[in-house]
């Protein structure tokens, strides 16, 4: 009897510690994460005007979104970013990780250098790229002229602006993913490679038949995070293209359009509806990838 009461007393103490220790976190998540989720869905059904006074709009914001050409264009641009940035980032990161896993001199130096873009501020580095791409005084046009090419207004031309922003995003994203993939590749037992070597398989063959399948769970992780971050592309666009310029429409992403509605046009209800759409798209794409992973991801 006394033993039992002691145990329950201990249990009570445990419970108190347990709840006490998660309370600060859950309180913060409640205020800044859970309530906002509810609030976005609610606001998307209202017209939120000046002083945040809101009137019921029903599905009005969604209907407006459906008929909004700019919204469709932003969605199309975002998909273009995804199509360009995601494969390039993942493939380059994978190739670099594989190369850095070979026995070469200066491996650590390469690792350090490739990682630098990952720790630098997107805002700062986007300004440098904007300066490089500058149509009048940019160094890129100077190089193009040296090689006999035609100088361009890279960032205001419809055919190049989105591509330039994509290149900068890839440049910034490769290092981060490379490090994660390198950690995965280093976890592969060298016995596989030795066996392949004995069988006479070349390095390229080994890359496709050993490295890729065995590191596929890490590739999957990298894909999921890259998809989520690319669909929310904002910093680079904001820093490279003036908001009110014509070129903005060529490069505007969904988050950029959301930002302008929410904080420049003060159309907070409409912005909320855009946020909901983005949320749904990201959710669907993530679920889709989860489904697809059974086809190509190998877990031991």
């Amino acid at each position, binding site marked *: 009897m006394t033993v039992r009461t002691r145990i329950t007393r201990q249990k009570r103490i445990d419970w108190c510690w*347990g709840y006490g*220790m*998660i309370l600060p976190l859950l309180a913060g998540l409640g205020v800044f994460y859970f309530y906002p989720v509810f609030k976005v869905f609610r606001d998307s059904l209202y017209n939120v005007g000046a002083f945040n006074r809101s009137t019921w709009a029903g599905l009005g914001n969604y209907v407006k979104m459906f008929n909004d050409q700019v919204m469709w264009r932003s969605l199309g641009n975002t998909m273009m970013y995804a199509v360009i940035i995601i494969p390039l980032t993942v493939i380059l990161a994978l190739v670099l990780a594989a190369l850095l896993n070979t026995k070469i001199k200066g491996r650590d130096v390469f*690792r350090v250098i490739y990682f630098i873009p990952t720790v630098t501020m*997107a805002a*700062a580095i986007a300004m440098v790229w904007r300066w490089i791409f500058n149509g009048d005084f940019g160094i890129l046009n100077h190089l193009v002229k040296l090689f006999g090419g035609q100088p361009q207004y890279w960032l205001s031309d419809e055919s190049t602006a989105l591509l330039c922003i994509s290149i900068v995003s890839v440049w910034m994203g490769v290092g981060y993913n490379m490090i*994660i993939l390198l*950690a995965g590749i280093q976890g592969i037992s060298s016995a596989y490679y030795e066996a392949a070597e004995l069988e006479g398989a070349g390095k390229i063959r080994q890359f496709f038949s050993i490295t890729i399948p065995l590191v596929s769970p890490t590739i999957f992780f990298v894909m999921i995070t890259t998809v989520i971050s690319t669909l*929310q592309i904002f910093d680079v666009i904001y820093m490279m293209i003036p908001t009110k310029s014509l070129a903005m429409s060529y490069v505007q992403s969904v988050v950029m359009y959301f930002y302008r509605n929410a*904080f420049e046009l003060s159309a907070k209800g409409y912005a909320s509806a855009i946020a909901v759409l983005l949320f749904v798209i990201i959710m669907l794409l993530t679920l889709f990838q989860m489904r697809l992973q059974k086809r190509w991801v190998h877990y031991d």
Partner: protein
Amino acid sequence: MENRLTRSRPGRRIDPGKGVVYAVLILGCAITLAPFIWMFLTSMKTQVEAVSIPPSILPRRWNLDAYTTLPDKLPFFRMYWNTILTSLIIVAGQLLLCSVAGYAFGRIRFPGRGFLFILTLSVLMIPSSFLILPQYLIIQRMGLLNTLHAIYLPNLFSAFGTFLMRQFFMSIPQELEDAARIDGCGHGRIYLRIMLPLIKPGLVSLGVLTLRFAWNNLMWPMIVNTEKAKMTLSAGLSYLQGQYITDYPSIMAGALLATIPLIIVYAIFQRQFIEGIALTGIK
């Protein structure tokens, strides 16, 4: 066939495959570093030289005007301080809150633990830009717009960090805890004295990731603080670029100064940084 045999034989001959590997890696380094070099070179030029045609690669005369005049254009030191302070608060806050909650989720049994943990994890599924508008409205209602509190407050709480910490706590063997229990330690003591020192790699990983995020974050600091004296560096740069559109040396000087501290921190803690990032990829 012949070729393959000679290649596998140990010798001092340079492998042509290796040559290609080096060429690719060095080209990659050049592409990675070029913007930084160009940023530095431009910042050392005069405004007139920066926009001369054809552009000069090296500055004709190295001068620091862009740096010395920067404080006139922008309260740069203030922004530095704001960035350092808010970044440190975010890192310290996340380490504390996430490790405390992670300990409870990983090591203490209490009713509803599973549900509350799933609830916490559900936050991971929400894209950050989805939350930014209501978060802004909450900060506004709290009367905290244009204060430093606005910058760090929502970022103190991290579901991802809690998950990471929980994984680390769970990897510690139960015997250690039992032994401490027998010695009469409560959860507070066990967390602080026994567990926390053991999960140091986890704390470093989370700290590194959080610092990188806090220092570089753009959208949130930009919308909550529009007063120059309350801006962080990234928001300040966006202001600088908007105001001094063609003063390229100043813009580049600002960009360089804003990125340098984190590059230095990274150079010092390079190993921990890379391990920290790598650890988060492990499922």
